[in-house]
Each structure stands twice: as structure tokens, then as C-alpha cells.
């Protein structure tokens, strides 16, 4: 079998991130709704995961030994679907159907999309699901890892900490969580609305290995994942410091772009800015 492990250069990973951003903006604009802010912040995270880090076979999405992936921040579907289409799970043409009737690409990530194993969209559940996948891997002696992408506002959900505790209790060193730490949630800064810091110390106190990186620096992300894979006996979290709306000047650090689509004028400017990144 031709293992779909991709060793990409940083330049290639940055190019994939740019493509994810462009497609995210186009999808949100076309749909007239969606979540561009948290999609743009996660572009490098998803680029590194889908085009470098994770083992999978897009033409055989149920391959039993594949690395598992859970998009726990299930609203960031523009970025997720853009990455998955680029990776070959479904035709890029399908991106035009995003959020439309009869589409496989639901507003929040769902099992109707090839390559997605569980529905998300209600924040807080994905890490627990990832733990279950990791437990199954341990039971079956499978070598795969489980990657779970969470939002930072999501850490306000109590279930995340139930799951953090379970992962450490069962020594799930095949779990790698990524926190998209863009600092904003729908109504403003996380630290103003409900403080979540110190995030790294919290995970460490639960027994996790932690690392903090610039979430827009693909090399830092790669290094963090490489390090994480060497740590045995406990789960790992990569806290990726990001900018919500990254790459589009009028969206950056503006919480109101959490869940609204750019109009034609805004789209034109946004695409031009991302192209120039």
C-alpha cells in the first residue's frame, strides 16, 4: 500500500494554508453564512495535520490503521472542508455546495462527509470521542494517533476537562490535542468573557505534556508534533497561539467575524490580502 504520509516542505505547507484560507472565504461568501474567523486562525494547523502529520488514505477513508481526526471546533468547516478536498477526500467542486440542501458538506462537520467519523458542532465533545478512538487503538494494538482540534472558547465547556482527566487516567499517549488559541469567542475575548488561562498549566496539572507554539508558523507546529510523538505515557496538547481572522485585515482580532460571511466587496479585498500573504 502506498502510505499517504507526506513529508512536505514548509513552503508547501504554507501554500496549502493559503489555499485553505482562500477556499474558506469563498465558501462562506457563497453560502452567505459560516465561520470564517476560526477557519482562518486554523489554516496552518489543518495544513500541517492534513499534508504532513497524519497518516490516512483519502481514497480509503475507513483504512483501519489511519490516524484519527476529530474537528471538535465543528463550526470551522470552511477550513476543514477546504483541507479535506485538497487532500482528496472529495472533489473540490463539492465545496460549492457547502451549507446547501442535499450537500454532503453540512454547516457543522458531520459523518455525511467522507473521512469524518463523528458529528461535532456542539462544543466540548470531541476530546472525549478522541479518547474513545485512542482506547480502541490501545485495545487493538494499532499504531495510530488521534488528533483533536479544539477551539479556545471551547475550553469553557466542562466536558473538555472531564476528557482531559480521562486521557491522563488511561495514559492515552496516542492522543494529541490542538488548541486553536485565537483568544476570541463569539462575543469577545475569552479572558474577558470567561477566563481560561493559564491553559498550559491547566493541562499540565491534569497530567498532560504541553507545548506552546506560534500557530501560524508551520515549522513550529511541525516541531511541536514531532516532539509530541516522542512523549510516551501521557496525552499531549499543542497550544497554538493564533489570530482569529488571520490574513484578512478587517477580520483579524474582530470577534464579530466568528460567524458571518463576507459580502462580494469584502470577499474581493479578503482574497487579495490572502494572496499577498
Amino acid at each position, binding site marked *: 500500500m502506498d502510505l499517504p504520509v507526506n513529508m512536505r516542505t514548509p513552503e508547501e505547507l504554507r501554500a496549502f494554508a493559503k489555499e485553505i484560507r482562500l477556499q474558506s472565504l469563498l465558501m462562506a461568501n457563497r453560502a452567505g453564512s459560516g465561520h470564517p474567523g476560526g477557519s482562518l486562525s486554523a489554516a496552518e494547523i489543518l495544513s500541517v495535520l492534513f499534508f504532513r502529520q497524519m497518516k490516512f488514505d483519502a481514497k480509503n477513508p475507513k483504512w483501519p490503521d489511519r490516524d484519527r481526526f476529530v474537528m471538535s471546533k465543528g463550526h470551522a468547516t470552511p477550513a476543514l472542508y477546504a483541507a479535506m478536498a485538497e487532500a482528496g477526500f472529495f472533489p473540490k467542486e463539492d465545496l460549492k455546495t457547502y451549507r446547501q440542501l442535499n450537500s454532503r458538506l453540512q454547516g457543522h462537520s458531520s459523518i455525511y462527509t467522507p473521512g469524518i467519523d463523528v458529528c461535532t458542532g456542539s462544543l466540548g*465533545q470531541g476530546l472525549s470521542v478522541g479518547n474513545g*478512538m485512542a482506547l*480502541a487503538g490501545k485495545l487493538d494494538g494499532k499504531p495510530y494517533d488521534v488528533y483533536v482540534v479544539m477551539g479556545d472558547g471551547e475550553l469553557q465547556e466542562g466536558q473538555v476537562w472531564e476528557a482531559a*482527566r480521562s486521557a491522563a487516567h488511561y495514559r492515552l499517549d496516542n492522543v494529541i490535542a490542538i488548541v486553536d488559541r485565537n483568544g476570541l469567542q463569539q462575543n469577545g475575548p475569552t479572558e474577558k468573557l470567561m477566563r481560561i488561562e493559564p491553559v498550559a498549566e491547566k493541562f499540565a496539572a491534569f497530567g498532560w505534556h504541553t507545548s506552546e507554539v506560534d500557530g501560524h508558523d508551520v515549522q513550529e507546529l511541525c516541531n511541536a508534533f514531532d516532539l509530541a510523538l516522542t512523549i510516551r505515557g501521557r496525552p499531549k496538547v499543542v497550544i497554538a497561539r493564533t489570530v482569529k481572522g488571520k490574513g484578512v485585515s478587517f477580520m483579524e482580532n474582530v470577534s464579530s467575524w466568528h460567524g458571518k460571511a463576507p459580502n462580494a466587496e469584502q470577499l474581493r479585498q479578503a482574497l487579495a490580502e490572502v494572496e499577498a500573504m
Partner: protein
Amino acid sequence: MEASRDGYGRGLLKIADDRDVVVLDADLQDSTRSLQFGEKYPDRFFTMGIAEADMVCTGAGLATCGKKPFASSFACFLTRNAYDQIFVSVCYSKLNVKLVGSHAGLATGEDGPTAQEITDIATMRALPGMVVLVPADSVQTEKAVEALYRHIGPAYMRMSRAPVPALYDDSHNFEIGRGYVVREGADAVIFACGTMVSESLKAAEQLEKEGIRAAVVNISSIKPIDKSLVLEYASKTRAVVTSEDHSIIGGLGSAVQDVLNENDSLIPVQKVGVKDVFAESGKPGELYEKYGLSPGHIAAAVKRAVGKKALRQ
């Protein structure tokens, strides 16, 4: 006399040869009886702490990898604390997770309304794709575990703490979607589930002394429900009573009404159940008496149904 939960413990042991069967519990494994599996197969038994939401989603994750998880707790904590998790991660995700809630209904007794789950049938049957089972004794529960194991998809099974007389023996052939006649009668029918099957039998015995012959049908599979059996006995008797240790809103009574409505039946349904109130601590028998679930109350409902039938004729 055994409680339905005793059958859960035995049923899990019967399906344990399949290495993909895994069991999770939220620190009630001694009460739900899943501990019997845990003691014998510790590598496939996961104590999840007092954290039902995490347990349900962990089960969902296991199921994505082909495991066959059974996740149990008290019905109240399982179905109320983890409802969104059951909705999104299990049902919407179409995952093969078996949820098992014990200590349902007023039969839980002295622990009071917090633990006396009276809304789980309503909430679980409202979930698209969910199978809902309420077995009536320990043998039927044991057989239901085997049926759940064979069924691929989300399912909820409701159990009770209260010991009830044995209704079935090992020859019982339990099927999801099938109802079971436990007593014949031509004047009225009592559709019952769980502990209320034996209470309804007591009511039918009382009624027989007064010349009223009431059939008792065990609707152990609430969803899917045995529509043809419900229609057969409703049209045969034209006097319908439902009997459940659950709120009269959304439970077995509503499920039976739905079947009759879908088939343009004009037969009214007398619902015996908890009448939109929280109960209180007490012995199960005392609670059944005070809150309208005792054999006397069931018999009174049958007489009302028979009386209304006479008015219609």
C-alpha cells in the same frame, strides 16, 4: 424475584466472548450490575468516573473503531446529564453505542425524585434512529442485551432497581420491535412496560373477579413499537389503557397513541403513569399507590376505558 438490572449483568457475560464488546460505567457499576463484566474482563471495562457526558462520547469514539460499547449508569444521570452527547455524538453520528440506564421510575423509591427518572422514555424516543427498550423482568433484560448486541446502531435500554416476579424463562425469544402478550382478555387491553407489566397483571387478576377480562401486553420495545400488535389488541378490545412508571407525557402512552392516531383510530387511551409531578421519597409500593400507579389505579383506568366503550356503542 429479581430486578431487570440483574439480567443486564448476566447478559453482558453472555456476549463477552466477542472481544469487541467493551463496557463503560460512571461509578455505578455495582448498582447497574456491569461490574460482573468488569471483574471478569478488566481490560475491556472502563470506569469513567462520575462523568456521564465524557463516558457517552468515549463510547462513541470506541464505536467509530468497531468496538461494541455498552455504557451504563442510573437512567437519570445517563439520559439527563449526557443528552446532548447522546444527540450529537451517538445518534446524529449513527454510532453503535448501547446506553443502559438503571433505577428508572418511582420504583427507585427512597432516593427521591432526583434519581426517580420519569422522562427518559420521552427524551430517548424523540431521538432520530434511537431504539428504546424497557424489558419487564431479569430474563427479558438478559435476552434484550443479546438482541442489542446483534443490533447495529444507537439504542437505549431502561432498567429498574425493583425486584419483580419472573415473567419469562430461558426459552423466551426476545426481539427488538416485538410486543408480547402476557395475558389474554377480550374486554380491554393494558399496554405496559417494565415493572408495570407485573403491576398490570395484578390489576387484570382483580378485574377478572369483577367479570372484566383485560389483556396485558408487554411493550418491551417502545421504539420501534409493535404496531400490528397494538392495533390488533386495540381493535379487538376497543378499550385501551397504557401503564408505565414514567411521566404520562411522551412515554409509552404517547407511543401507543401515536400508533392509533396514525391509523385513524378513534379509541381513547387511558394513561396510567406519573401525572406531570415530581414524586418524593418512599417505598416503591407506597409511591405507586400515592402517585396513581398501583394495581388499583390500573384497574380503575380499565373500568373507565370499558365505561367509555359502552358509551360509544
